[in-house]
């Protein structure tokens, strides 16, 4: 029986190895170029292609036991929401600001991890707001870190 995970990851490693190898031709050369900045990346790229091939074939021949179960649709949605919320957070952080965005992020993530327990939403919002403000004050006042103030600044 095929181990799909090994087949996919083996192919991905081969692709990455090829990408690292191909990109190495764009690296500038210097007087040390004989043993230059391309030497190790090319060696590593070659090893990656080799390892990718071993993993791919081992997956095709079913020589390795499949680890874990495949993701169900619900689990995949949870993962995608988690990653997307983080991405939105990163993109909006500078403009909206740390306090509002982090409060929102903590609330969304708490809801997500509690598998959408809507009854406790007000509690989660309170925890998120208090924690975010405490972290903001601690790091900006005590450790003099510059956190984006955004629309509140």
């Amino acid at each position, binding site marked *: 029986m095929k181990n799909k*995970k090994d087949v996919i*990851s083996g192919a991905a490693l081969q692709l990455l190895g090829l990408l690292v190898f191909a990109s190495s031709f764009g690296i500038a050369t210097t007087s040390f170029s004989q043993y230059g900045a391309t030497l190790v990346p090319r060696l590593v790229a070659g090893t990656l292609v080799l390892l990718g091939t071993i993993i791919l074939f081992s997956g095709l021949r079913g020589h390795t036991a499949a680890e874990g179960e495949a993701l169900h649709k619900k689990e995949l949605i949870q993962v995608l929401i988690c990653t997307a919320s983080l991405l939105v957070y990163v993109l909006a952080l500078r403009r909206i600001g740390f306090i509002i965005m982090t409060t929102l992020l903590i609330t969304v993530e708490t809801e997500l991890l509690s598998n959408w327990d809507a009854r406790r939403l007000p509690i989660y919002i309170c925890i998120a707001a208090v924690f975010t403000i405490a*972290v903001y004050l601690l790091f900006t006042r005590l450790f003099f870190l510059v956190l984006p103030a955004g629309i509140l600044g």
Partner: protein
Amino acid sequence: MLESLMRGAADALGGMNILLTIAGTAIGIVFGAIPGLTPAMAIALCLPMTFKLDVISSMCLLIGLYLGGVSGGLISAILLRIPGTPGSLATTFDGHPMANRGEAGKALAAGIIFSFLGGLFSIIILLFAAPALADLAVMFTPFDYFSVILFSLTMMASMAGKSMAKGLASGMLGMCFAFVGAAPVDGVPRYTFGIVDLNGGFQFLPVMIGVFAVSQVILAAEQSVKTGREATVISNVGRVRITWKEFKGQITNFIRSSIIGTMIGILPGIGGGTANLLAYTAAKSSSKDPDKFGTGVLDGIVAPETANNAAIGGAMIPLLSLGIPGDAVTAILIGAFMIQGISPGPMLFSTQPNLLYSIFTALILANISMIILEFLFLKGFIKVLNVPKYILLPLILAICVVGAIGSNNRLFDVFVILFFGVIGYLMNKFGYPLPPMVIGFILGPMMELNLRRALIYSKGSISPFFTNPVSCVMLVLTALSIALSVIRTFRKERSVPDEQSE
């Protein structure tokens, strides 16, 4: 040596440093005790706080976190039957049956006392072995260094996961991420793809935060669908003590497990996660009554808990004397040194001996803090186990963001933690171990630097790699470790179709 030891100890025993060690140990115990939170995560999250501290104070905090993190794992292993850290896996075998029998207090007391003693044993070995190894390492040439690092990488890769190919691939992936930015020796920019923020390469701290913390949040999001009620904690532990007779009966077990733990810790790449299982197996096979193991015997708690703490001192030996990490946590400690502008290695013993003895003192202090904190505040740590992960992890995520921004004062690093969080999650799902990637990320540039220096020195000849004794021995050991792993993999692969056909 005595003068440096006294000065180093005096530096580490300043009021602020004692407080930082105690605080670090307490936070470490909490992170170690809660399954899903790891000592590596605790250190990665607390690293931003060290920016404003001097090097000794930051080491006190980080060592406290490391030691506390490893030691905290026993609490959940005994009370929840879930190891808080991989180093406490074997503790569940006998710890939980004892807790179910109403002997949780005895199991916890044995675990805490022998964790302390195991740690102490390895710190004493570290005190004597590290300077001796550093004396030897001062004479290392780039050929030797390259071969030692290659050995460390292959050992790590071949031992970390179930598949050697995946372990090696994980290590290579870490090296690939380290290629981004300026190349060693000549500073030529590579793999920046025109992104200005990548000119300096991926910063160490956001990478660690992404791999160890953000990936856990994504994993928890996936698992939240099928997580029903979280496992209940046995909160009635009774009296936390063992008798003198029980203690005396464990001395041979303690000595054997301490030696196993320290030796495994010294070997690059395999730390407490392997040491505890090996010590448990050794204790079982040398017992007069091996059948009792697994039913709740003290020997089954003493062996793994002694060994996982003994691995701490062991892992610090290559870190301090060679500048090569023994496990994932010591790899992060190397990063902490770099943040302070210090490169750990043999020269540290001649240039900054006080700092080294401060680190030894901090280790002893953290060990003492650990035993006192775990005995005095055990009930508090047990209560923390009841805080739901869906509350804890999002709060940790917020601190991750602050840590990422703080590492370089730029928002780009928040992208970096997200990127490495996804990478860490995917590697986890596809069965690739994470520690080799971290070691590859840290050791990759060191290996490249020494390889290129060596080749420039030898004018391209590779024969000095085989004629230098240390380098030659290391290359032979590298070949042996790969050969052993290949044999192990073949045996496993042959057994899988057999099992499937049954």
